[in-house]
């Protein structure tokens, strides 16, 4: 039980854009608790989000935020972390934003191993645009748009991230506050790119994957599961019927920022370093 005061991240009496009972509320409260327990301050964190109901998290929690474009949160996060590695950078958005519009950035954020936690609210449907299929919608799922039922292969974010040799890959269910909190804590404190796909119900548009459905169709990876075993992680990530939850894969490796030429021998954030015009002048001499 969390006895810490997480009101530092509260926005007070605001008008939430989410439906009553939305999984976003659960994730928001879990996140606030995690940040409090990790003793992070709102000024030290930047929450970068895209567009969609999940992405509005930036407006409902109190911290620095960059609420950018649909699908484009990761490049922004990469740059923020590269310019100022002292900040804790968290990306949060939905399945459509991250796995649809932002697909290419996801590939390369993982490849670069940017030191950012990417939290994906996965409710398997587009909420804000009123109920179209998302990349993670299940086969046969009928919507007004996909009126024959979804017939394209659902996107599996876990096998995808493990295939790219991501540094940290996990899945959680927002209905389990304690376990999700532990997973997020591990993710945020892990050095490198961390991917946390969080199952959540959409109470308005997804009548198939409900709160109860997620409860009945998920279970946790065993305590004996070894997250350093990539092949096994991949195999478990392919499981269907009942979906495993937990940390699938951990692969410590140097981060993007550590690899950048500017930080190889100097840890001072680049934005703090002063430019010396005398040096510019010397460089110009080389053009004589």
């Amino acid at each position: 039980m969390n006895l810490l005061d997480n009101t530092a991240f509260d926005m007070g009496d605001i008008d939430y854009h989410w439906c009553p009972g939305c999984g976003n509320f659960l994730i928001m409260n879990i996140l606030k608790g995690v940040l409090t327990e990790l003793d992070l301050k709102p000024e030290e964190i930047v929450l970068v989000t895209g567009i969609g109901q999940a992405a509005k998290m930036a407006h409902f929690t109190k911290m620095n935020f960059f609420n950018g474009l649909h699908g484009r949160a990761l490049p922004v996060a990469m740059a923020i972390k590269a310019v100022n590695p002292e900040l804790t950078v968290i990306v949060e958005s939905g399945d459509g934003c991250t796995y649809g519009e932002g697909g290419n950035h996801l590939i390369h954020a993982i490849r670069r191993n940017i030191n950012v936690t990417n939290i994906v609210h996965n409710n398997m449907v587009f909420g804000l645009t009123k109920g179209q299929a998302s990349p993670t919608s299940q086969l046969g799922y009928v919507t007004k748009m996909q009126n024959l039922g979804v017939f394209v292969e659902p996107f599996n974010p876990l096998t995808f991230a493990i295939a790219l040799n991501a540094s940290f890959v996990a899945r959680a269910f927002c209905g389990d506050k304690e376990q999700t909190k532990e997973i997020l804590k591990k993710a945020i404190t892990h050095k490198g790119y961390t991917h946390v796909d969080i199952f959540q119900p959409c109470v308005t548009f997804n009548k198939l994957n409900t709160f109860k459905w997620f409860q009945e169709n998920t279970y946790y990876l065993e305590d004996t599961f070894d997250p350093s075993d990539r092949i096994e992680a991949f195999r478990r990530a392919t499981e269907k019927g009942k979906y495993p939850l937990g940390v699938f894969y951990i692969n410590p490796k140097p981060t993007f920022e550590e690899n950048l030429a500017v930080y190889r021998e100097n840890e001072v954030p680049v934005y703090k370093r002063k430019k010396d015009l005398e040096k510019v002048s010397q460089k110009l001499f080389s053009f004589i």
Partner: protein
Amino acid sequence: MKTSSFSVNKKDDISIVLAGAAGQGIETFENLLISIMKTTGYNVFSTKEYMSRVRGGINSTEIRVSSKRVAAYIDRIDILIPLTKDAILHLRKRITTDTIIVGEQENIEGALECTDCEVEVPFTDIAVKLGGKIYANIVVIGLIACLLNVEEGLVEDFLKQRFSSKGEKIVSNNIAAAKKGFELAKELKADQRIVIGLQKNPHVRDELLMDGTEAVAMGAIAGGCNFIVGYPMAPATGVLRFLAGEAVEFDIVVEQIEDEISGINATIGAWYAGGRGMVTTSGGGFALMSEGLSLAGVTETPVVIHLSQRPGPATGLPTRTEQGDLELALYAGHGFFPRIILAPGKIDDAFYLTQDAFNLADKYQVPVFILTDNYLVNFYYNFPPLDLTRIKIEHHIVKTEKDYRRYELTESGISPRGIPGFGEGLVAADSHEHDEEGHISEDLHYMRIKMVEKRLTKLKLLENDVILPELIGSETYKILLIGWGSTFHLIKEAMELLGERDISFLHFKQVYPLYPDLSKYLKKAEKTVIIENNATSQFGKLIKQHTGIEIDAKILKYNGLPFSVEELVEKLEKIVKL
């Protein structure tokens, strides 16, 4: 060596063209020769035209060596070195009866059909005897250096410097190759068949020799740039490549990004976090940045964009030039937001304007474009040292207080810009319409109106810092030539050749927002002539929109090549006589 019967006497301004296939070392030749000529005390200019391929095809480089300053492309060829069979055909229109064509037998076939001056030199045979085919270009360099009265020792020094890392053998072979070139040239000079009289000016040695790419990149460094990204695309990649080499020395985060959408979003993210970022691209890549540009607009995040134009639509002509993306830069991005577009015409301006772009972006929290093109980024010439006392890196970041509001409504329209982690406040950036704190707002009767007006006010404010157009020639004129960006030197040299006193030239290095009092220049002229390297006179349209004045005559070119000085003279003569 065999020569036709000829005798030429050339003064002041020599144009040397080397033409061959991609992969024949033309670029190394260009770099080496212009450095040698400049160190000798000659003014130099060089420009290349090349095909979009790694091997084969025909590429050519023009090097002007002159007693006076030169900075523009001319059609005339005084000395042509064809390195392939197709070279003469490729350049046929530019060859005259006194173009000296020097080359191997197989490459100069048909030369006498267009010139009287043919010199056959078995460059490859000579080079092979010296140790390998690769020395052929150095024999050519020796030959040209000697024809242009360069000291042999100076060429040797250059070769030593250039090849010292490759071992003594390579150095001595190169020196022997250059020596051979000198011997051949001495024969040509012996009976006064070729006389070239160029004046050496010792001051030229102390000048800078740079291309547009280097000037933009150095300008970025001097502007405090500490973040650069780009996706490889001609002709914009050079800037990214240059800065990659300076990453450690000048504290720059450099990344080759996955696509241009990422490029603009990342650059905006860098500024948000307190960095000074630039993204470098060409038209096709910039087209992908449209939404990101709009994001910079609504979030009021500074961003610097180097947009180096090439002809479109779509892939178009990847390695050719055009001033075709002015309207793209002007109108890209949905919704209204202010922006600044700078278009250097001179290499020093490419430096100063890029430097200033970072200050302007920071001050006004708007996107700033450096609009160059393939012609500008690839030409070199010597110019006097840059004046660094003229520049300053201006920062406009504030330390935030507890109750900081990123989009605080102010009289000027500019809200003090904080960055995360600096001060006690929280810093927001929001792509939605937002309130002063940066949170989503659908208050249509107050906040939306205030925020639109805030961004509009900034546009008006930008006019305070507009860079004045540069008037070349007399303040009183009958004919006013108008140009922008890379055509500066072409128009200037053409105007000088015309020698008419009643003509002046107005050059714009800031094309948006336009100089507010522009119509005073136009109204003074009996006739206005606009010169643009595009098909529809994009800048002329902007001037009309701004002043209501229709430009009288237009000289437009859109085949993918820059104007030549001669071509401009010919077209202007017709217009002037009307």
